[in-house]
């Protein structure tokens, strides 16, 4: 599955997108954040305040409880500041 990052989440991780293959027990957005956080310091830093991180699955906002099964693209980003 493709994971995309924006704003300071992207800056901290050091890339805008990547393909990841989390193990089968990673079922929700929250669990994916936890799994990604274990991939290195840059990920731990990006997701250190995990509950503030927003997520979208296939371009729709989702909560951390949302299942990731079937997702093509999962995005992580800080609260939006557009407008």
């Amino acid at each position: 599955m493709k994971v995309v990052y924006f704003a300071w989440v992207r800056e901290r991780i050091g890339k805008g997108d990547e393909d990841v293959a989390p193990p089968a027990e990673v079922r929700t957005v929250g669990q994916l954040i936890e799994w990604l956080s274990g991939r290195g310091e840059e990920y731990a830093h990006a997701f250190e305040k995990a509950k503030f991180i927003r997520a979208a699955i296939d371009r729709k906002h989702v909560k951390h409880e949302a299942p990731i099964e079937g997702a093509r693209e999962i995005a992580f980003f800080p609260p939006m500041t557009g407008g």
Partner: protein
Amino acid sequence: MATIRIQREDFDAAAEAAALTRGRKDVGAVVTFVGLCRDEGGKLEALELEHYPGMAEEEIARVATEAEQRWPLQGVTAIHRYGKIAPGENIVLVVTTSSHRAAAFEAAEFLMDYLKTRAPFWKKEHNIDGTSGEWVEAKDADDRAAERWS
């Protein structure tokens, strides 16, 4: 059917408003909102607006559809810029038209409140002294503004 555009270049608010009224005799109220880049105390060179391509259009379209369901609108246009935007330049445009002013006003406010809290855009400050400033933090006030519609 709303007009939604995400673009780097500037927009012409008057032309967008005119497009919603031209040749019509049933529009009673046009509300145009323009959000501009403000200088925070003389140190800002520009804001850089990052966005999530694809989702930005889709999310604003969802918000516009919701506005069209809640108010009797005749037209909705929303344009959001991305890239580097200097103080005094336009960032966002919302135009709503309706037979009556209350619907046009409320829908425009609703669109802006939701755009602020749901559209995937992020602002980073670039300072005049060459330093790259902070990512602008989301405001609780914006969340509260959006909550009043639910």
